[in-house]
């Protein structure tokens, strides 16, 4: 098993005629992911890399029975594209783009919740279920199948962290990038719930950072008596207050935003803390070891 994305994925690429869209057709094929359709308004009837192009998501869904969408359009039309995809009935959507106005992210999130769809992003590499399918642009070589569910706020950190985990023998059920923006589709709490319900996921690893409050969702979860074991690596321990560290949401505005406050809360809730990237595999091993033990 895995979360949201499985080997039966039939992927639709909105914005397939753009640079990213066309790259993704080839990249996904190499990751054994079935791309069944592309969408580009006014370009219906064409084909890109052998994939049929439709003028609307509804037409593409009807013809190809796509069940997952990857959206590569500029931020200024992203809300339109995501709403079209949600309302066409697509249950899983990744919008990786960054620079999206937060009001548009709010509308996307609300529309997804209203329709029972799962939206991954914005500002995220997407979602991968190693060995099964990929809905995003993360480098596939970093991942391997296994029992760990990974949630990450940062693309670059998740690549290297998963590469190290895979090298150390800790494969992943799924790796979901919840993104670096303050408002997102699937958030930490929802991603945790998905991994909690996935029988093959035996432990959860959270890759977080300073700023925002998503990390507290993991602390809340870890306190539950039925929680799966979890480990966390938070970056930005040495970041100064009041400065945005690349991601829109990575800024320390109050004590609760800080590395120390978050690590304290996670530690108190029983989450295994990796102080550095270097300590991540040990933390993963420790969490998995707990998963082996029967509940006390």
């Amino acid at each position: 098993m895995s979360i949201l994305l499985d080997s039966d994925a039939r992927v639709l690429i909105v914005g397939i005629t753009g640079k990213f869209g066309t790259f993704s057709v080839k990249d996904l094929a190499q990751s054994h992911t079935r791309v069944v359709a592309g969408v580009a308004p006014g370009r219906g009837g064409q084909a890109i890399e052998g994939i049929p192009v439709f003028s609307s998501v509804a037409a593409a869904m009807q013809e190809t029975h796509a069940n997952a969408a990857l959206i590569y359009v500029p931020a200024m039309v992203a809300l339109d594209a995501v709403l079209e995809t949600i309302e066409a009935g697509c249950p899983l959507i990744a919008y990786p783009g960054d620079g999206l106005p937060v009001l548009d992210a709010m509308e996307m999130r609300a529309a997804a919740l209203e329709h029972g769809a799962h939206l991954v992003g914005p500002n995220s590499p997407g979602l991968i279920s190693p060995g099964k399918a990929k809905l995003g642009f993360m480098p596939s070589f970093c991942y391997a199948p296994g029992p760990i569910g990974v949630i990450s706020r940062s693309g670059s950190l998740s690549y290297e962290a998963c590469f190290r985990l895979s090298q150390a023998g800790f494969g992943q059920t799924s790796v979901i990038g919840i993104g670096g923006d303050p408002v997102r589709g699937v958030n930490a709490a929802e991603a945790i719930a998905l991994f909690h319900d996935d029988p093959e996921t035996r432990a959860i690893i959270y890759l977080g950072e300073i700023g925002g409050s998503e990390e507290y969702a993991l602390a809340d979860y870890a306190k539950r008596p039925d929680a799966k074991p979890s480990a966390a690596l938070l970056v930005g321990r040495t970041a100064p207050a009041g400065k945005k560290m690349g991601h829109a949401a990575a800024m320390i505005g109050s004590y609760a935003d800080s590395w120390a406050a978050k690590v304290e809360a996670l530690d108190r809730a029983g989450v295994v803390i990796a102080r550095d990237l270097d300590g991540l595999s040990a933390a993963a091993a420790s969490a998995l070891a707990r998963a082996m033990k029967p509940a006390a």
Partner: protein
Amino acid sequence: MLVTEAQGKALLRAAAVTTPSSHELRSLDEVRDCRVDFPVAVKAQVAAGGRGKAGGIQKANSPAELESAFAAIMGMRFGGEAPASVLVESWLDIERELYLAVAIDSRVGGFSVLYSPRGGINIEDGPPPLSYPVGLARNFRAHAFRALLEPVESDAKVRERVISTARRLLEIAQANECTTVEINPLVVSRGGALIAADAKVVLDEAAAFRRAATAATIATARDKAEREIRLCEEANLMLVWLDGEIGLISGGAGMTMAAMDAIDGAGAQPACFLDVSGNPTPAGFGLAFDLLDRAPNVKGILVSMFGGGLHTDRVARTLVELLARRASSKPVTLRLNGTRSDLATTILGEAGHRNHATLEMAVADIVKKVAGARS
């Protein structure tokens, strides 16, 4: 992007939120020509917090006091920023100070309204404000907020005015694409009216493509920013200067922070957050090296890239060329991992550079080199 109090209050007034009568003054001539009823508050206009505690708000009881307060404030710096102007406002007859804000809350997935019946500059020392999770601005419900306010705010008149003002702040945030609209203090005047005595407004920079006012504010801030920051923004690099000695060139926000933390873990400190993933070309790396080579506090440079989509062999070629014609003698440590890193190691090796296998090895190397250079 934080705007000045004066800009924030202009947004409040446009939505009919009451603010004190005020004049924004830029020169001593303007101060001398300005007619006000004393006493007045004289307030530094900077896009930075903590102004009150730093002496940026003064009271003046006479034209002479106003002149000297103006001169004093214009000479101050707040978070490194010089005020472009002062705001001179009628001194308010204060019954009580409230705190009211709307802000994006990531766990809510939208706006929250924050309220405290005791606002003012020490708000952070008190209990956390009441939080009403709204989400989309249109989901604001007066009755839901009222139910939350009842145990916290006993004055029914104040409560109703706070509810109306909160709705107005959400409308402002929505119409102008603000991520924060905070009023602290929101003053209850002796007559019972609510007056926004301060305004902290943060604009969503991502909305600049459809908000001319946001685009103009960003352009102004860029003009005022120090040269290095501006050059990086123009080149699509992300730079934040820090206090340490290790110049860090990395890729991706998360990995750059991870590398900063690793440097700290090895007993040294990063000199910067410098993410070149937006432009991993000869131009991007060239600018990065140029800035770090010139910075006096930078004693050595660590380049750490993990190639995902990025082909590290290309980066290796870029670095070989760049290092060949570099004048600075500051030590450099390289670490390219991920996509095509075997090839990168070969390319670097042929040019006499070592490619470290891991971030930790590379960090240890540069920390040792810098310590060696010092001793």
